[in-house]
């Protein structure tokens, strides 16, 4: 994901007070395009590196602390992914729609930390191992719980940030 830090938050906040409008979407897309055409900022890379290091330490630490035995639910990966989805919804919604424009918070917190805390590849390997053992029930429940849980986590944290804003 490209760390957008343009003026999108202003448009998005109008967008969510009313019904979803095409104008808001168009403007958000244009903002994204503008930020994409920027040159890469070294401090942005540094922020991603720092966030990524902390995210990787947290995920690997969790995996070391709670090793998964064959045939059981991969709790460490699952927990990291759901928590990461909760946090990315919270961070990005807050940064886009509530806080003043900041160029480094999104690469640090979303692209770096949440991106590295969560993982896609490990899930695929865990699913392959479940399939090797013909444990289809575990594979199906793990995959669906991850996707549904991850989606609901983003939904819930985004809604929470907007609710707080609406009350303020």
């Amino acid at each position, binding site marked *: *994901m490209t760390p957008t830090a343009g003026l999108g938050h202003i448009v998005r906040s109008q967008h969510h007070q009313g019904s979803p409008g095409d104008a808001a979407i168009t403007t958000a897309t244009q903002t994204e395009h503008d930020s994409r055409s920027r040159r890469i900022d070294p401090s942005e890379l540094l922020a991603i590196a720092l966030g*990524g290091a902390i995210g990787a*330490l947290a995920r*690997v630490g969790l995996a070391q602390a709670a090793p998964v035995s064959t045939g059981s639910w991969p709790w460490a990966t699952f927990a990291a992914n759901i928590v990461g989805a909760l946090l*990315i919804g919270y961070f990005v919604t807050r940064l886009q729609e509530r806080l003043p424009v900041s160029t480094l918070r999104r690469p640090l917190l979303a692209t770096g930390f949440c991106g590295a805390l969560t993982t896609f*590849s490990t899930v*695929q390997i865990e699913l*392959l191992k479940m399939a090797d053992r013909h444990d289809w029930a575990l594979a199906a429940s793990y995959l669906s719980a991850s996707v549904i849980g991850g989606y609901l986590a983003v939904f819930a944290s985004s809604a929470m940030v907007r609710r707080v804003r609406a009350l303020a």
Partner: protein
Amino acid sequence: MSAYAWIAVAVLGSVGSIARFLLDRAISLRSAGSFPLGTLAVNASGALVLGLLTGLAFSGEALTLAGSATIGSYTTFSTWMFETHRLGEDGRVQAGALNVLVSIVVGIGAALLGRTIGAAL
């Protein structure tokens, strides 16, 4: 794990995250639509490489460093879910559903392909 291994986890986590950012950016700049192709490419290529490492029988600390720390940080679940949620929110429900389905099918296929290649080497 030793202190050195933890330092390596942090460094490799940075490397994986920067690689993800750069590939996603390069693909997003070249794709016309707003479908999150960049994240799909990152996750599919990461699943392929992690499958390869598994097929090559990497284990223990080597798998932790090359697999969990590097490829684990390179691929992302949170961005995938975030982009899916925002597609749905913008009324592009079909694109969101497609983003979930294609990622899963391509991801598992890539992991399986990588593992098969790794085991054959």
